[in-house]
């Protein structure tokens, strides 16, 4: 018995029951179709900004037509609204562009090339200070597949000043995906694979979320946490099967690994997980799928108070960003290519 004990891992403490019980809020939400959405934020002028590939679109009111606000030279990977109307955009390749309220590029804020692998989230700490989250994986890497099986903590939190001066705030983070400030102004970072929220010292503020964490945002009642997928029992089980995982990593391309995914996939050569995905030709909502739509609403202590979900039979999976806009909770679904309006916050 004893030799097996070190292999046992503690799965996340929370399950999709009780307050996080299944619902169809994401599937029922009103939506706008967008190509390749990744990031969104509410601008100072009251418009909603969201990325679509290399473009940033602006929406004046829900139901209106989105207009192109700026077009960048690389896919936009993060958006943040600053105090003076500034908007920062993380760009693929580990670069940053900052725009003023009119959409004109602002001088400064130049990130030395090669210093940051990729910017997955950013946050203005002041007019002059921008925090960047570097998850450690490049734009071509399938982050979800890699991070689930990577033991190396290569993520960092970097502060960039308008002058171009760069400072490392935290390092050794395991795949950080989002950054936010708590009520006291302390920095919180969400970690994708470790399903926990930590501060810059690496101290765990809350752990055990039943998903792969994405971006973290403040709301009127606490926080909203976008989850790229939910915890999958097969993946959790494989964490004890080291030889199998080592062989999988050595012989198969990451795209085919048993790992969380952004898009719902059901194919005949797919690991069928106990044959448990379909019943009478329909995908069962409770099937153990690799992709999932999950947004967790939390109180000020980072304790979940509610959720919005799209289950295995839905398609609004991989919730990658969330923002509060005019009192409504707006989320971006990578899998379905939609911006969703969940209505007033919990």
């Amino acid at each position, binding site marked *: 018995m004893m030799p097996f004990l070190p292999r046992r891992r*503690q*799965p996340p*403490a*929370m*399950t999709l*029951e*009780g*307050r*996080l*019980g*299944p619902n169809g809020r994401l599937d029922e939400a009103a939506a706008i179709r967008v190509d390749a959405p990744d990031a969104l934020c509410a601008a100072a002028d009251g418009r909603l900004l969201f990325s679509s590939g290399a473009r940033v679109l602006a929406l004046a009111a829900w139901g209106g037509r989105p207009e192109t606000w700026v077009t960048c030279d690389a896919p936009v990977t993060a958006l943040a609204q600053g105090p003076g109307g500034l908007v920062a955009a993380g760009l693929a390749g580990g670069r940053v562009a900052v725009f003023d309220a009119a959409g004109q590029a602002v001088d400064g804020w130049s990130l030395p090339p090669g210093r940051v692998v990729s910017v997955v989230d950013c946050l203005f700490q002041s007019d002059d200070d921008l925090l960047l989250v570097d998850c450690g994986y490049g734009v071509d890497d399938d982050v979800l597949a890699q991070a689930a099986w990577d033991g190396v903590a290569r993520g960092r939190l970097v502060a960039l000043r308008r002058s171009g001066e760069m400072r490392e705030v935290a390092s050794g983070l395991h795949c950080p995906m989002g950054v936010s400030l708590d009520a006291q102004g302390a920095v919180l970072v969400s970690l994708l694979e470790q399903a926990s929220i930590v501060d810059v010292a690496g101290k765990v503020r809350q752990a*055990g979320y039943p998903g792969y964490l994405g971006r973290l945002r403040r709301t009127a009642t606490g926080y909203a946490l976008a989850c790229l997928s939910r915890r999958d029992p097969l993946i959790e089980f494989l964490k004890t099967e080291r030889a199998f995982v080592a062989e999988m990593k050595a012989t198969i391309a990451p795209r085919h690994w048993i790992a969380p995914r952004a898009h719902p996939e059901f194919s005949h050569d797919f690991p069928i997980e106990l044959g448990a995905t379909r019943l009478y030709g329909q995908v069962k909502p409770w099937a153990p799928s690799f992709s999932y739509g999950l947004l967790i609403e939390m109180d000020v202590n980072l*304790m*979940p*108070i509610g959720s919005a979900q799209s289950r295995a039979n839905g398609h609004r999976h991989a919730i990658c960003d969330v923002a509060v806009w005019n009192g409504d909770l707006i989320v971006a679904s990578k899998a379905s290519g939609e911006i969703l309006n969940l209505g007033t916050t919990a």
Partner: protein
Amino acid sequence: MTDETATPIISLENATKTYGGIAALADASFDLRRGEIHALVGENGAGKSTLCKLIAGVVAPTQGGLRVDGEPVVFSAPKDASARGISMVYQETSLVPQLTVAQNIVLGRERAFNSVRKVRSAARQVLQRLNFKVDPSQLAGSLSAAKRQMVEIARAVLNEARVIILDEPTAALTPEETDHLFDLMRSLRRSGVAMIFISHALEEALNHADRISVLRNGRMMVTGPAADFDRARLIRHMIGEELDEGHDTTVKARSPHSALPVLRVENVRMGSMVNNMSFSIFPGEITGIAGLIGSGRSEVAKVIVGHTKRNFDGGRIWLDGREVRYAIPADAVADGIAYISEDRKLDGFFETLSVSENIGLGWLAKFGRRTLLAPLGRMRQIAGDWEQRLAIRRIGAGQPVLHLSGGNQQKVVIAKSLVQQPRLVIFDEPTRGVDVGAIAEIRQIIRSIADSGAGVMLISSYLPEILDLSDRILVAKGGTIVAEFSRAEATATKILHAAVH
């Protein structure tokens, strides 16, 4: 079938029985006719069991008299009543666990030299006649509650009893076994046997009895043909007022205090009964577990508290985020888990000790570990406090729990667990064999436990109870959890469908 003009086979005239100056039965008159099924109903402590014990010769009346076939009789022991053809099937089974079923059936009527084969074949004959599938060579201690009840009934039938008194015969039986028992009672009635049965299931009394008598606070309230009663009228006589039993929609589903479960069970396996069971229990929420008998609900509860062992590598259990594996239930008690057993007489209390001693021992089990001397004064004070909080009604301070009514016994078991200040309470069939009034009280107690922030797991085969109490309903089938419903979406049809298909 019954002859109203004939002399009643049993008649009790103005009988009073007092315990320690308090009347358990006051000035009650009762008669039983040949070949009738007579139901006795009443709240816990109404005096039903006392009345039956007077007839069966277990206790003697303080005042008043008993006539059998019109002759006045005085029974000094149950043996005397048995000689007159009166048999009683007790609520707490009186089998000797170390003897076989056959030996138990002939117990008290053995000859000086017994042939093992004859004893066994006599027992087999009577069991087969009654269509009870019980092996006569099995030890009585290894039988389930229902089978023990069957052996008791077989014993009465073998006795060629003219009067059989059944004290809550259906409390431990499944619906099919209950139907079978009433079939048997009807066939015994045809052969002229008179039967008294005590039941808390009012429908049973209304559907199967010829006459019904209602007792309240030791007094006979009314006796009449079953056709004259309906459920509401019975309840009015029993408690003296109307009771709203409808699905209580005023109590809203409470939302759990936290998203962190107090108990998390993952893939637990135990023998053939529990098969990959996974679920979570949240603080401040009542999680009902519905399912058929044998769906592995009680078994998983017993694995959680360390009463039975799971399979090798048979799943994992976390209590407040800490993985636990209890070797003995005492460790689970120390960690704040209370399990309120479905068989309270066997596992729930010490039947010869008093109410306050029982509650005090519950306290000692958790807080008195590793103390040299038991703080008796403190224990008594805590016990008195809980007795009042749960309104446990008893006669006399030192009265053994054995003599309390089913509902009060259940309250003692609950008090004994609550005194340990648990963070997780597992109720297994909490209102089985409990009368209508006490059911409402016990449900209120369960709600208040959840309101205080503890996690509550409620195992019940009685669907209205699950629907009424639970905030979240899980359905077990074949040792695994097959469905989950919120309070709002659950209906009896949906739950049954999940439990069966």
